[in-house]
């Protein structure tokens, strides 16, 4: 049996503990927990303006699920993930492996690949919008094509996906590089005596050894892609004929809540998006048992 009585020193320690976590916990209650509950509640309400709400049950959700624009945005978001996550990860792993060889200026290359991370996405999106420009853009001139990258419904998401991969590949590569550097060289030496080829080594040693890093990059990239907003906001606008074909869930959330002012409906969209993210993350955590190895 533990006694409830604490010594004076233990009591002082406890008081300090509470005092020191107080700002954070109070902050989290005000800024996160209460808003979280409110968002769930307002998703069942109609916004009457000026922060006044009326309870309307599941009306927002039935409206949402019968809205084609909403399903299109959901599809665009999923499609964006499909375009960015696998390609982004393969490219990042490739860059990380290049940087893991004995090259000169390794730090310089790393600095260059990492550069987009410190640039505001708004500025990055601006220059890419110019590069992708259908009439005068440099990309069409380099490729000798005549594609309306951003205003054509079939390429709009692809264009944003390219920018997203370009922005994040250096960051993901640095994370994977840390994993690669932790692989003991002796593993490869022992393996090459066995006469294993480079490609087999990649699949039997490299991938299993960095699977924890690959997994954390995968989760991070998926969550970020599901929430894509600023690149789409900056690369498109209301006059873009491909708007409906490129807007993501978060963009639709922004427009519904803060442009149209329909905060109840906006809350329903954000709840849907967060549920999707949690679902995808759970599936990944369940699936990791099949390919992630922590115990080598």
């Amino acid at each position, binding site marked *: 049996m533990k006694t409830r009585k604490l010594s004076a020193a*233990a009591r*002082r*320690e*406890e008081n*300090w*503990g*509470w005092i020191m*976590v107080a*700002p*954070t*916990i109070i*902050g*989290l209650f*005000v*800024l996160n*927990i209460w*808003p*979280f509950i*409110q*968002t769930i509640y*307002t998703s069942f309400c109609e916004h009457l303006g000026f*922060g006044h709400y009326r309870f309307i049950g599941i009306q927002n959700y039935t409206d949402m699920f019968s809205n084609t624009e909403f399903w299109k945005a959901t599809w665009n978001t999923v499609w964006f993930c499909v375009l960015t996550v696998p390609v982004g990860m393969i490219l990042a792993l490739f860059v990380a492996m*290049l940087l893991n*060889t004995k090259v000169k200026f390794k730090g310089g*290359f790393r*600095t*260059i*690949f*990492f*550069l*987009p991370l*410190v*640039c*505001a996405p*708004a*500025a*990055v999106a*601006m*220059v*890419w919008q110019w590069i992708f420009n259908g009439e*005068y853009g*440099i990309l069409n*001139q380099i490729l000798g094509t005549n594609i309306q990258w951003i205003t054509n419904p079939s390429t709009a998401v692809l264009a944003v996906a390219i920018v997203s991969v*370009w922005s994040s590949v250096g*960051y993901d590569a*640095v*994370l994977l590089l840390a994993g690669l550097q932790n692989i003991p060289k002796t593993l490869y030496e022992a393996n090459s005596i066995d006469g294993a080829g480079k490609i087999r080594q990649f699949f039997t040693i490299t991938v299993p050894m960095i699977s924890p*890093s690959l997994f*954390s990059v995968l989760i*991070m990239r998926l969550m970020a892609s599901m929430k894509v907003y*600023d690149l789409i906001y900056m690369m498109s606008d209301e006059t873009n004929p491909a708007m409906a074909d490129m807007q993501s869930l*978060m963009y639709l959330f*922004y427009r519904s*809540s*803060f442009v149209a002012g329909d905060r109840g409906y906006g*809350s329903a969209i*954000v709840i849907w*998006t*967060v549920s999707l*993210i949690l679902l995808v993350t759970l599936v990944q955590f369940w699936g990791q048992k099949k390919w992630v190895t922590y115990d080598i």
Partner: protein
Amino acid sequence: MKRSSKSGKAIVYALLILGSVIMIFPFLWMFFTSFKTVPESMSIPATILPSAFRPDKYKEVLEKLPFLRLYWNTILLVFFRVICAVAFSSMAGYAFAKLKFRGKGLLFTIVLMQMSLPSQIFLIPQYQMVAKLGMANTIFALVFPGLVSAFGVFFLRQTYLSIPEEIGEAAYLDGCNQWQTFYKVMFPLTGTSVAALTIFTAVFAYGDLMWPQIVNNDVTKFTLSAGLATLRGMNTTDFPMLMAGSLLAMLPMVILYLIFQRQFVEGIAGTGGK
């Protein structure tokens, strides 16, 4: 054998240089375009270099947007977000790692919950709070959602956990109370992590677009990111001016990055990775 490893190395260099060109080209293109005239920027075939390095578009964009204000607002936003994140997260991180108190497990669960939820789910109510306080269009509104950082708490807790218990005990025996042990002995040992958290917080506050757009609609209270969004809304064909604006908005952070490369890369990657 030697030959093949030599040509292998050449391929590695070639690929790295190709990758670097792809990474740098958009920035160069931004730079060159910003000095062109509008007709020049639209010439086909495109010219790479501007015919002259005229600063006209920079003058124009400085008239269109109050850039000095935007810089100042962004600095204030970053400054207050960093101060809050470092101060409150250090205290809480230390307490969660080193102190015994009732409710610790439950309170830390709240921290973890906040971390796993996307921030957009809090946006509408956060905005309504700011509006109710009559604080829309202020610097405080910009800082508001970042007053505490659950991520910072989680990250610094890891750091404090890695500091051996003996150090705290020695300070305690020397007569320090818990606060003095934290403030005078433990906190100074976390320099690298605090620097990482600072860079991480600063880069993300600087790049954030949605929140500044929501709470502030007065251009004199905009951040650089939100300012760029307005600039694009005003004019969609004057690309040289848009490029000049983007370059001005990017420049401070890029300069800091080039000075503190290692700290930036390790700071951002180190905090995000694990």
